[in-house]
């Protein structure tokens, strides 16, 4: 087909180069893909597990030789199948798809819950030369705090402040990762907040940014099928998450309050709670 809008939509197969265990439930998988290696922070790809399913993943950046990484949390049949894959196994890739985070200057706050850390780590590395980053990293327990070493080692100390939180208190602040956010918003007055993670966390962050008048961009997750804006599976309000998102501004989130933090579409198109 013509048109640059679907550039990257061709499915290509590639071999898994490496599988790394990040936590009891998360593995990172790396593979070579020239197009996705040029993706911007916030963009996603569709990964085909032959014979099983095809599911979306946020891109964890690529390197100069075209190697791309994604983080896979074991949550269902497809991700379980992917966890069993080894170096050399064949997978299929489409993408990159969607928009990306804007690149802010000055002081930025990143709020990352679980595998929501992926696009924000990619973004933090991209912003390194131009922004001072406060990174709030949250998980259920210490062992599930993924990419902590990479955040610490990848970002220079004078440019980064890392705040961790765990629901069971095994590392950092005990509780949800939105807990320290209020304080950072009040004291550091960041120029921009970026958030990715469970939608309740995003909703709370949104409400706090409304209150403090802080700019905000969040990355949303919805059921993905076509990834090119046709099937309607991923809509929120008037937006299609695959092509109008996955990154949405505070203003756009305001327009989707009837659904944001509340509901999404299930496989048969009816609304279910997020």
């Amino acid at each position, binding site marked *: 087909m013509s048109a640059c809008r679907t550039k990257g939509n061709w499915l290509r197969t590639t071999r898994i180069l490496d599988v790394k265990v990040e936590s009891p439930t998360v593995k990172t998988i790396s593979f070579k893909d020239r197009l996705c290696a040029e993706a911007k922070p916030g963009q996603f790809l569709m990964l085909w597990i032959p014979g099983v399913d095809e599911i979306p993943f946020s891109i964890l950046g690529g390197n100069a030789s075209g190697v791309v990484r994604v983080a896979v949390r074991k949550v269902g049949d497809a991700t379980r199948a992917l966890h069993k894959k080894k170096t050399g196994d064949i997978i299929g890739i489409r993408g990159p798809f969607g928009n990306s985070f804007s690149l802010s200057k000055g002081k930025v706050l990143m709020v990352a819950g679980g595998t929501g850390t992926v696009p924000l780590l990619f973004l933090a590395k991209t912003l390194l030369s131009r922004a001072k980053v406060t990174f709030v990293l949250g998980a259920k327990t210490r062992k599930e705090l993924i990419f902590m070493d990479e955040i610490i080692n990848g970002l220079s100390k004078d440019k980064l402040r890392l705040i961790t939180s765990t629901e069971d208190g095994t590392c950092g602040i005990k509780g949800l990762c939105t807990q320290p956010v209020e304080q950072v918003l009040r004291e550091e007055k960041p120029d921009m907040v970026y958030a990715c993670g469970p939608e309740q966390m995003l909703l709370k962050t949104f409400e706090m940014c409304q209150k403090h008048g802080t700019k905000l961009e969040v990355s949303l997750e919805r059921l993905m*099928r076509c990834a090119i804006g*046709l099937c309607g599976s991923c809509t929120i309000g008037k937006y299609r998450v695959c092509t109008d998102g996955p990154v949405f501004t505070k203003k756009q989130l305001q327009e989707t309050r009837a659904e944001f933090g509340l509901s999404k579409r299930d*496989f048969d198109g009816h609304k279910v709670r997020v």
Partner: protein
Amino acid sequence: MRPNPLCVNLTGLRLDNPTMLASGILGYTVETMKEIEKNGAGAIVSKSIGVKPRRGYANPTVVQVNGGLINAMGLPNPGIKEFEGEIRHAKQVLTVPFIVSVYGYSAEEYAEVARKAADAGADAVELNVSCPHVKETGSEIGQTPQILAGVIRKVKAAVKTPVFAKLSPNVTSIVEIGEAAVKAGADALTATNTVRAIAIDVETKMPILFNRVGGLSGPAVKPIGLRCVYDLYERVKVPIVGCGGVTNWQDAVEYLLAGATAVQVGTAIATEGPAVFRTLSHGISSYLKRKGYERVEDIVGLSHKR
């Protein structure tokens, strides 16, 4: 005021322009349909709705090939009971005609869904008798004239709104099917649904779509859809809606010249963006002016003149 040259009458429905959103694309929610209306669509067709909710197939549901896409979504839909609310909402929000696409596993099911859709306010129903990738419905109904006629008669008896039959190109003679549909009472024909197709990955030696087989759409199928419209126009008297690969205004004009009263657009929303509807209308409008025609209806079927 000068009358709108793009305005068409489709079975009594007034379309401000002859472009329509094709079934299966986006049509779950009023918000997204309203967005398509804002982008200039002259009418909206919903996703195909059945008696019961259906989850559709696992991914991959779409695969890109040269000249188009093959999809096997598997008719995901929330079922008519849930969709009735969406139809009522749509009628309050949309200003263009709203057509509900209907599928079923029997004539009775088609009639039940069509009646409920019409009662909820649908301006017309379009019978999906042509989906190429779900067993015991779609093209399995629409490829046999007698079965198709039975479905249309039941639906016609159940609703007062216009009834469109969306035909499959995967038949020996679409004219025979089209004539049977019209004889049974179809008020318009949509031609066509996707062309049965497959894509295989050479590395894994596996069909890529989860359902293995799907339907081809996009520029590759336009000459096929166009031929179907051309052939039907020679033999049937009801309006024909062209569907298949419309991407630019020339495609739309070709369909009109072949005998279509309006065209439906789907795949081009991915390649051209939702603004494709407005672009098509502008193009058709300029063509009419350049060729000296007052109304779009003046060029319908002109390619048949010898």
